[in-house]
């Protein structure tokens, strides 16, 4: 959106924020905070993240930030509150439904209450007292509290023949913990309510004890399947804050790793989708393809899941000498294998019967809920930062935009197939014009008190790191945001009207991160 300073009220000040994308910050009072959010909604901006910070030591105030993805830029709204006993800010949930859980988390962590009536804890599961806030400056990270289980008020559905199935947080298989409360009639789902937060590890508090030069390692571990996306977002924020410019070859190698991460996850998901439809053949063969890719990653990038490959100033290591040929050979084999497996999936009546019309998320629903990333693209929304807001090297080498319209499990599976092919084409184009030269640049010391943003389109959607620097190379505050925050609520809508036994398949087709959203 375009802000003309002459038309703004005095408390709206625009300033450029250091970031890998075009990014601006507006300091907004309570009224402007609400009003600008309304206008952003009208312009179909997306909510990227919402987080709180304790700045009492600096200016005696608390701050809440909201980052939006506009048509041309990222806009960060910052709203400061006086340090009263109960600091409150206007809720953005009426414009951006995904904000509800983020606002609940902001209260759990920083103690800033939004005006939304849902006051149930989100990340706080009776692990610490309700009046203690871990991300406040005076809260000791080492504090221990006795665990006193508290009840959680799920929304009750009443009516003739309605009953509840509580699923999780401990499941029959070895998967991450999440609590799903189904209200059903017979086998039909009337309502699904999620409760997450079981994997809250206190990563944002942990960041504050780290040096800014080693933060990328922790960021990579927030959600292990998005290691490249998170560590790149971290490094992008740090490099923007310090003004470091990475060499072109390093940018190329980062993009190569990001696409490898995308392909590996898509392969794993496609296999798991087959398995959840009872077609174990698919799992075996996609697992083999994925394993081959992971082994290639190990020999080319030095790590199977690409942990710590992206480092401040560039990448941790250059490609070994024979890597180019190895990569081209692998892409050719993989492309052939995936095309064959796709034909098997598409010609298998049983698999298609399970995939089609299952877990449909209509475009209008996805739009009003603020869907991002892969889930949005499968519902006909063209949201892909690599295409709409490209950063180097995506700004020089184009990647094909892939969008599916149906919004069902089949669309999310098809999208993954298409994205694998698009990523392979991109990787080939990138390798063909791979820049020569250094893979590491010097990163100067960061100026303290700067806020910088790193935003990268990971395989699930846009990953955001908001980094605030502290003196002596420290981290003052870091907010790491996984797109699963925005997309978990989609699942509650996609399941409606479906039958209970189709839930695992629908859930797998989104494959959202528990660890990433729980932090």
């Amino acid at each position: 959106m375009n802000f003309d300073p002459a038309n703004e009220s005095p408390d709206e000040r625009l300033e450029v924020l250091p970031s890998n994308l075009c990014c601006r910050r507006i300091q907004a009072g309570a009224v402007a905070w609400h009003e600008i959010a309304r206008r952003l909604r009208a312009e179909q901006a997306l909510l990227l993240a919402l987080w709180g910070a304790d700045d009492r030591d600096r200016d005696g105030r608390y701050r809440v930030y909201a980052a939006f993805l506009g048509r041309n830029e990222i806009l960060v709204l910052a709203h400061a509150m006086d340090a009263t006993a109960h600091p409150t800010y206007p809720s953005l949930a009426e414009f951006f439904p995904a904000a509800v859980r983020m606002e609940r988390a902001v209260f759990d962590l920083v103690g800033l209450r939004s005006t939304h009536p849902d006051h149930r804890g989100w990340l706080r599961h009776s692990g610490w007292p309700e009046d203690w806030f871990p991300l406040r400056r005076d809260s000791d990270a080492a504090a221990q509290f006795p665990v006193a289980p508290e009840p959680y008020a799920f929304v009750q559905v009443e009516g003739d023949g309605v009953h509840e199935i509580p699923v999780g947080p401990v499941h029959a298989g070895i998967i991450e913990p999440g609590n799903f409360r189904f209200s059903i009639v017979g086998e039909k789902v009337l309502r699904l309510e999620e409760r997450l937060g079981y994997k809250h590890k206190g990563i944002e508090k942990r960041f504050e004890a780290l040096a800014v030069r080693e933060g990328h390692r922790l960021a990579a571990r927030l959600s292990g399947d998005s290691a490249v996306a998170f560590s790149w977002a971290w490094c992008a924020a740090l490099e923007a804050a310090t003004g470091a410019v990475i060499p072109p070859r390093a940018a190329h190698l980062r993009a190569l790793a990001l696409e490898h991460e995308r392909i590996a996850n898509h392969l794993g998901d496609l296999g798991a989708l087959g398995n959840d439809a009872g077609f174990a053949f698919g799992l075996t063969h996609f697992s083999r393809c994925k394993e081959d890719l992971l082994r290639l990653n190990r020999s080319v990038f030095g790590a199977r899941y690409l942990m710590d490959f992206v480092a401040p100033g560039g990448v941790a290591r250059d490609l070994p000498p024979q890597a180019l040929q190895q990569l081209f050979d692998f892409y050719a084999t993989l492309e052939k294998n995936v095309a064959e497996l796709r034909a098997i999936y598409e010609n298998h009546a049983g698999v298609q019967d399970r995939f089609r019309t299952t877990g449909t998320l209509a475009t209008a629903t996805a739009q009003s809920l603020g869907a991002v990333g892969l889930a949005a693209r499968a519902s006909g929304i063209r949201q892909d930062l690599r295409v709409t807001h490209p950063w180097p090297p995506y700004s020089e080498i184009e990647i094909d935009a892939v969008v599916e319209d149906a919004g069902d499990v089949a669309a999310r599976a098809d999208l993954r197939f298409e994205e694998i092919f698009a990523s392979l084409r991109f990787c080939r184009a990138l390798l063909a014009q791979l820049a020569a030269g250094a893979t590491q640049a010097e990163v100067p010391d960061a100026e303290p008190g700067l806020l910088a943003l790193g935003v990268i389109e990971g395989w699930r959607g846009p990953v955001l790191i908001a980094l605030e620097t502290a003196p002596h190379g420290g981290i003052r505050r870091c907010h790491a945001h996984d797109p699963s925050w925005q997309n978990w609520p989609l699942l509650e809508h996609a399941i409606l009207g479906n039958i209970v036994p189709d839930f695992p398949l629908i859930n797998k087709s989104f494959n959202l991160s528990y660890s990433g959203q729980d932090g």
Partner: protein
Amino acid sequence: MSAMAIVWQFVEVALAIALAPLFTGWIAQCRAWMQNRSAPPLTQPYRMLRKLFHKEAVLAEDASLLFRAAPYVLFGAMALAAAIIPSIVTDLPFARAADAIALIGLFATARVCQSLAAMDLGTAFGTMGARREMMIGFLAEPAILMVFFNAFLLFGTTTLTGVVDGSAAHPSLIDPGAIFAAIGFVMVLLAENARIPIDNPATHLELTMIHEAMVLEYSARHLALIEWASSLKLFNYATIGIALFLPWGIATHGASVGAVFLALAALLVKLAACGAVLALIESLSAKLRLFRAPEFLAMAFLIAVLGLLVHLLMGANACA
């Protein structure tokens, strides 16, 4: 009734109980090969049983006698069923007491008992599994009855031993209706034994389970008995299928010991082939949506009825 017949009766039941896990292991091995995985050893089900029998049984506080008794009833019912089915000999004293319709009743008793036990604890999954199991059961029973009627009409008897004796007496009799009945039977077998495409015995997704959901709360020896009973049920279904459609080689009344050993060898070969075919069907198909299960079983019923019609029409022709 000779003393020898009583000996064969016991040998047959013991053989069924001993071989059932092997048959399950064989299917698992074939499935693994067909999906290009390295296969678990044939003895894997036995190792599982041994492990479970060595564990300490944990029961829910609210578990009633029904919950604890169900595994024994289940196992007993399946062992009893094995006594009625002529897998190697037809001279079974026990088979005279109960015909194939009683056999279906025996399976139904086991089903009801297991479903009640699953609901006993009041957990959401147990109830869900029991509900689904009853839905599958009441659709599968008419279909299997229709399959039996095909054979009954052909040989004028309602005992399986009678059917096998009858087909041994007329080895050249090939009834086209039997092909329909066999297809219907395989479909019922898949549904009744929690196999793909109706249920997935390997799944860990609790919301999709049917049979597994009912046994989630069992542990140790109780679980071992239930697993063993499930293997035995599958074995029984396979031997029923063999008795109905591939009876060649089964030792009839007054057969010598050598003929019985020959029958055993024939049984093993036939079981190996059946297991491979089952694994092939399971590897080629995906699991059906739960609400397609009624269509699947209605189809099984219809195919069995078609077999009956073919038989009656052919019979009418023969008379005319």
